[in-house]
């Protein structure tokens, strides 16, 4: 090759082409999305997060959670994510407009957690109702960590507990004030996905234990709100509750023997009990339990991390994305009573 000029021009030209094509043009296309809202300008989604969420995201980054957990749900035609109960619709660019840093991630040595907050027991999705704690819900689970660790903004918190459940469960399980609902979290996505596969598939908690009750249809009476699901060891906090996350982070294999998640004990503090056991002390069993007179409590970082996890929730419908189970965007209006009172909406086409 003779002469530098063509070489230089070519080197710059090819790279400029790629830079413009793959970063500048996409930025022009989807780089300035706004949150969506309904006609009245309310029900805004997504909303920016702050405070403990931000710090939790930092803890998440610092400890490399994204090297094993993705936060993106693929469309039903592209993968089994929705059937696995990881979400009720595919993720869309708009879901992430306030995320910084962003953890779409490429690896699933652990489950996808784009909707881990949406899988929390119903009572943790809104302020805990007074006196609603069932036997299965520990004081630590339902009270302070939950309340303080869920700095969710108005929209996700006000949205019905879980959309799949909202669409087809009987009213009783939707009332977050109902004791039974508090005790047995209705698994998100379960009712809507069950007809299509029939096996344990729709269980969001397929990773933990066996799930005998996974295929049962939602029960009708408020007194028999279905078996506790997934099967829980006595004394364990409900799945995906804040207290559960703490125990899981502290000792993953106490919850699921097969897990290969590392424990994050350095985010917890073991200390002597002073006057009385702290409200947010972890309920540990077996060899993890601290000696008599000691307790394990989460550090502020651990609380922030759990707050962050509890706020991961893409269950809010997006106008341009079809939700699984046909839950139309309209039913997302934050009025559980209205949604519960109406008959289950039939599968509607995407909006």
């Amino acid at each position: 090759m003779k002469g530098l000029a063509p070489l230089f021009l070519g080197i710059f030209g090819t790279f400029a082409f790629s830079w413009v094509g793959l970063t500048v043009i996409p930025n022009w296309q989807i780089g300035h999305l706004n949150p969506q809202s309904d006609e009245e300008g309310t029900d805004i989604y997504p909303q920016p997060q702050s405070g403990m969420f931000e710090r939790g995201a930092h803890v998440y980054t610092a400890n490399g959670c994204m090297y094993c957990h993705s936060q993106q749900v693929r469309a039903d035609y592209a993968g089994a994510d929705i059937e696995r109960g990881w979400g009720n619709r595919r993720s869309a660019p708009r879901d992430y407009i306030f995320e910084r840093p962003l953890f779409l991630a490429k690896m699933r040595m652990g489950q996808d957690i784009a909707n881990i907050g949406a899988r929390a027991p119903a009572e943790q999705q809104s302020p805990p109702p007074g006196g609603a704690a069932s036997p299965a819900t520990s004081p630590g689970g339902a009270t302070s960590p939950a309340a303080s660790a869920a700095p969710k903004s108005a929209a996700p918190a006000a949205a019905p507990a879980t959309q799949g459940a909202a669409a087809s469960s009987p009213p009783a399980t939707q009332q977050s004030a109902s004791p039974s609902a508090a005790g047995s979290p209705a698994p998100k996505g379960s009712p809507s996905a069950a007809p299509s596969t029939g096996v344990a598939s729709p269980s969001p908690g397929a990773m933990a234990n066996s799930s005998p009750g996974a295929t049962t249809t939602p029960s009708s009476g408020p007194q028999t709100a279905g078996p506790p699901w997934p099967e829980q060891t006595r004394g364990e906090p409900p799945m995906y509750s804040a207290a559960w996350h703490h125990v899981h982070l502290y000792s993953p294999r106490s919850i699921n023997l097969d897990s290969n998640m590392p424990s994050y004990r350095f985010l917890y503090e073991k200390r002597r009990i002073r006057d009385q056991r702290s409200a947010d002390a972890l309920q540990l069993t077996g060899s993890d339990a601290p000696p008599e007179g000691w307790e394990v409590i989460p550090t502020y970082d651990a609380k922030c991390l759990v707050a962050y996890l509890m706020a991961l929730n893409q269950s809010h419908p997006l106008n341009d994305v079809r939700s699984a189970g046909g839950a139309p965007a309209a039913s997302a209006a934050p009025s559980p009573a209205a949604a519960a009172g109406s008959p289950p909406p039939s599968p509607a086409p995407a909006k």
Partner: protein
Amino acid sequence: MNATGIPLKEPSVSAAAGATEQLERAYIDASTRVPVLMFYTSAIAWLVLGTLLAGFVSFKLHEPDLLSNISFLTWGRVRPAHMNVMVYGWASMAGMGTAIWLMARLCRTVLRYPLLLVAAAGFWNLGVLLGVGGILLGDSTGYQWLEFPGYAAIILFVAYTLIASWAVLMFRYRRGEQIYITQWYLLGAFLWFPWLYAAGQLMLFVVPVQGVLQSAVGWWYANNLLFLWFGAIALGTAYYMIPKVIGRPVYSYHLATIGFWTYALFSSWTGMQRLVDGPFPAWMITASIAAMILSMIPVATVGLNHHMTMRGYFPLMRYSPTLRFTVFGAMSYTVFSVVGLLISLRSVARYVNFSQTSIAYSHLGLYAFFTMVIFGAMYYIVPRLVGREWRYASLIKLHFWASAYGIGLMTLMLLAGGFLQGTDMENPSLPFSETVETVLPYLRGRSLAGILLTAAHFIFAYHFGLMLLGLGRTSTVPTFLNPVETETSGGH
């Protein structure tokens, strides 16, 4: 062809080179001595550290309780530390050292402004050190291959600016009209890297793009770093080493031109295929998949060119360490590209997405292709810098086989394990923990491969240390892997 039929030349004595030219080369080589050795020594130190970190990461993945109570040794911190040590500590420094030496040789001029390079090597080491420390202390940014916190990134950039300005200066002093193929690639790499790095940093941290575009920019960066920085350096090096060692010109200059320009054009458009089925406009992903397919053009042309150059000379791989490593690397380039193409097709990606397969792909590119070519170059260059020949042929052979089997086993384990993992994941009747159970045996196999690679790297570091201390052989012939006199059968 019978090996004895080929005149095994002492590589620096090319048939055409007269006595003056030889002297001139020796003079140029001597001028590169301090900076190149500085880059190489740092690179090998980082390689050893990165290998230890890698082994730790690999074992922790199937033994999660190993030292998990210490915050800076948690898996999620050691893994990015390993990746960044390898990418910026080992691969970049070794690549730059090789590129510096090649630039001086190909510009046919003594290395000027060595202080620029010495300062750059110092800054670069400092940047990597701070960056890795930052990651272990929890300061990672969380973007693949850009995990270094801002303070480390700035230092790296300063160091890099020094190197790039040196390269441009050297180019002005070059002699001869002709610009050799290797120089195209090296010049490309030197000019692409700063743009790439600056664009990545700016679009992610200074004026961050919104939402999912961060991932797009992140993967655009990582992919182009792999192709336009490491790939370009490795291809350029292979274009120099293969003809040099066998003493024969490149088969076709024309093919080389096509290969270079299609490489620059198409491989730079890949990257988005890693985000297949993600929350992106479909055209971005499709464009990258198309670019992956078109990237077969440079693969074919470069592969054909190397093959035709080597034709009849393959038996030489039995003797020359440089040739053996370089040809292994050049062949891996083809494998790497084909695997990359296969796993990016939508129908396959469905099953391998989110699995260990992508780790296999990265290792094919960074190790089987890039690192092996650079090992070959080091076996060629280091004796010319220290004035001694490699001491033990047996150690070189051990290094080669441990590396070759190690990376081969690792790739197979991760590809097979990843495929099964992904297939299980696509079957919603299997609980998720099954998918992890499925891949664990393969991860243990990967750890075994890691032990082989660790052995290879310690052997190489020891051998290199001997060379640095002046304990190499004093001889006029290079160290051959097998004695030339007694061997008569070729081809292995």
